[in-house]
């Protein structure tokens, strides 16, 4: 019983509130919205105190009125600031996979089901803020940047949502921890070493320049594709840049094998090397397979295969 009452208090929530990711849509209940004056707000209070003393000292009736009007406005502003944040719905959205060292973007859908607009909401994460305004009965998508430093799953952790609207004298804030994660691939290494030779017996020697025997189809251009494989005729017809993909024996079955890497490389360096190989092989339109100590992905080509490989590398041994 005591616990139940406590759990409704703000103080309790501040210290013992949910530290775990909250599944589904997050609803900003009153009890999880906190409010305190900002530094300008404290200066405002100080100015009002001086104005009150001046009014008393000089018996200024209008001075009282002005001081009280501004003081009351400060009180009313508490309500306005609080209601600017409270009762919002926040739903996790997409979080596209990135490579380590890049910036991951977590999309949050902020929904305002109430009958008045919400202004100047900030979502703070790692010292950076994403701003948004939400009209009455509308929603908007906010992308929260996060530095992806390590491979694996990246969760945004605690996000501080705050607002100083309308006067900037008060700050209402709330902590949210949306249940979402972003896949972070290992960072590819510098790429000085070429791809390994296709393994013997299971295909012919790889033709320099990449397998280019049998035309297998087109796929959208990627920044690292060789200009020789761009379908220039299509580009000239205004269909955008597309890359020709080839298959066949010449695009020999390439094995990107953990065991063939030098033994003196550490685990992350090995993964970085394999990641680059996956990217290069995919760019060159090769069929490639990935062999990790406990996992083997059969040779294949194309986008889904590439993503599978990268995912396996990202999550290896975690």
């Amino acid at each position: 019983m005591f616990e139940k009452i406590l759990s409704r208090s703000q103080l309790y929530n501040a210290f013992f509130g949910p530290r775990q990711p909250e599944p589904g849509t997050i609803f900003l209940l009153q009890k999880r919205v906190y409010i305190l004056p900002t530094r300008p707000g404290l200066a405002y209070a100080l100015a009002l105190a001086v104005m009150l003393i001046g009014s008393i000292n000089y018996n200024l009736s209008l001075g009282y009125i002005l001081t009280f009007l501004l003081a009351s406005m400060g009180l009313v502003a508490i309500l306005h600031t609080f209601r600017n944040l409270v009762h919002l719905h926040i739903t996790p959205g997409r979080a596209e996979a990135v490579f380590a060292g890049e910036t991951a973007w977590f999309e949050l859908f902020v929904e305002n089901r109430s009958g008045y607009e919400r202004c100047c909401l900030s979502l703070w994460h790692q010292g950076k803020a994403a701003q948004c305004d939400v009209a009455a009965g509308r929603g908007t998508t906010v992308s929260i940047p996060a530095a992806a430093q390590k491979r694996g799953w990246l969760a945004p952790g605690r996000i501080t949502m705050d607002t100083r609207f309308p006067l900037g004298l008060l700050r209402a804030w709330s902590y949210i921890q949306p249940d979402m994660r972003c896949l972070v691939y290992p960072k590819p290494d510098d790429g000085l070493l070429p791809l390994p030779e296709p393994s013997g017996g299971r295909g012919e020697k790889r033709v320099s320049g990449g397998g280019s025997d049998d035309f297998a189809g087109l796929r959208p251009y990627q920044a690292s594709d060789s200009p020789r494989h761009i379908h220039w005729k299509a580009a000239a017809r205004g269909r955008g840049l597309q890359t020709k993909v080839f298959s066949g024996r010449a695009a020999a079955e390439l094995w990107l094998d953990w065991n063939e890497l030098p033994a003196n490389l550490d685990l992350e360096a090995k993964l970085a090397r394999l990641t680059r190989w996956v990217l290069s092989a995919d760019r060159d339109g090769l069929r490639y397979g990935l062999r990790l100590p406990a996992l083997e992905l059969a040779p294949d080509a194309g986008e889904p295969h590439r993503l599978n490989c990268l995912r396996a590398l990202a999550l290896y041994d975690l």
Partner: protein
Amino acid sequence: MISNPSIQLRHLFWLLAGLALVAAPHAPRLPWWLNLIALIFLAWRVYLGLGERVLPKKWLLTLFVAGGVFGVYFTYRTIFGRDSGVALLVLFLSLKLLELHHQRDAIVLILLAYFLALTNFFYSQTLPTAGLMLAAALVNTASLVHFAAPGRALRANFKTAGVLLAQAVPVMLILFFLFPRVQGPLWGLPQDAYSGVTGLSDSMSPGLISRLSQSDAIAFRVKFQKDAPGRPQLYWRGPVFWHFDGRTWRPGDFRPFGQLRFEATGIPYDYELTLEPHNHNWLFALELAAKIPPNASVTADYMLISRTPVRNRVRYDMSSYTNFTTRGTDDADELRPGLQLPQGFNPRARRLALEWAQSANTDAAIVQRALRYFREEGFVYTLEPPLLGRDSVDEFLFGSKLGFCEHYASSFVFLMRAAGVPARVVTGYQGGDINPVDGYMIVRQSDAHAWAEVWLKGRGWVRFDPTAAASPVRVESGVAAAVPATDPLPLMARTTLVWLRELRYNWDALANKWNQLVLGYNPERQREFLTSFGMNEPSWENMALTLFWAVGGLLALLTAWLLRRMRTLDPVQRLWLRFCNKLGNKGSPRSAHEGPADFVTRAAERYPLKANLIRAIGERYIALRYGERADPRMLAELRVLVREFSV
């Protein structure tokens, strides 16, 4: 985490506008060089803002500050006064403009602007000032909103500021009426705190009252219980002067406090007088006051003296007799100051007075002789008398014959004394206009007047008005009718336009209401007001307690009203959630991933007895929420079903 973005031009413009609104009314009171500096800095800041140029360096600003503070010190001879304080505030404000880089600086400016708005009330608390400062508060508050929501439209921000101020009004009113009032000042006020108020002075020299007569300012307002006396009887008694040095009349030696001793006939006039602050101790009353206001005494020459200088508007009840006789004293010692004359001044006047004294057999006859002189020798009543030299009385009586009331009163008393009749000068106001709108009589500075009192054996001190002898119109109809049309009078005093006069009456009535209700609300009035509301003992503890509950209650109401639109708007969704809660409380909550159809199926399986009801609710919810056309009847059904549902 505090971000300090730079300032947009449109926001800069409104910030400057708000500052100009609070600083502009100070301009006439400030030294010219400070106005110039403020204008130059304002223009400079606009110029820099328009071209997105770099603001001046800090050392330059420090130089300006030092120079400005020096300038203020040399102008006011202090930096700790009221006026010099305002000057410094304006100086810092205009300098801060050149240091306005970030939002933080802008907020400092806005807070200073609020404070500067308050300082305007040192000088004027009239309705127009109040209106102007309210507008300034709106613009400055909108600036706060601009800097809190820089991306928003200006119009929306102004609306937000207006809404905030409007919603603040109820709480403001409660604070105004219930905040325990303390009679200021809390500590010694600066010397110049009450300079610049107009009114009669504690001496009288030629030209002083005629200058005062050109002011339209209100001296006091009077509310008579019944009819007011006729205009010729409206002599409002103020300072009395005994000592003449040839040019200036002064009060003379200290007059002991006494009692009101006189014999009155007829019925007294009862009235209430609201006196504007004039920074002196005397109070005004119709001749002759029959009672003494609280915290005041009366002198032997019938001056009402307040214990403290009148620095705020005061209101007191009075009662006066217009028919009276002061028996007064026969003691020669006490009458001697009434015969004092400076040696070696005005020989012709002295000779004339001596002639009268020799030819007349009573003092009363001398008085009549003198009045006839004023009546018959072609004296002109004018606001613009020529400057007089050393023998001012001689020059006036035998030379220019152009004078205002102080000339008449002064030379009349001089003649009386020279003839051996005790006399004294009385200043005050003569006249007053009834405002037909609210029935208050208004007495203005332009009604300022001086007259004489002569001591006659057996009758005591008797009032004689030499001005009335020379210009009877002055006493019967007022200054405007009496002076030549070319004299400079306050515009309104002479107007013959009916609508203008009516407008002015309405305005005065409004200003009077404002004074009585708002500006006159002091600790005493607060006690009366709260007692009339049934508060038995309006101590500050009681007020604070009431204040606390009243503000709390009001804020609670406002909260309820503000948050009323916070609820989810959709009634269907509300009913559905209620239904889910009912099931959830019984131990089968809906999972986050579970759609309504799945949940209904599961619940129906778990509670077979209620399965039909559960399915009915589910069907209606799905139809209402996801269906093509929602039937309003279905919503009513859903409401009933959910209400009756229980497990």
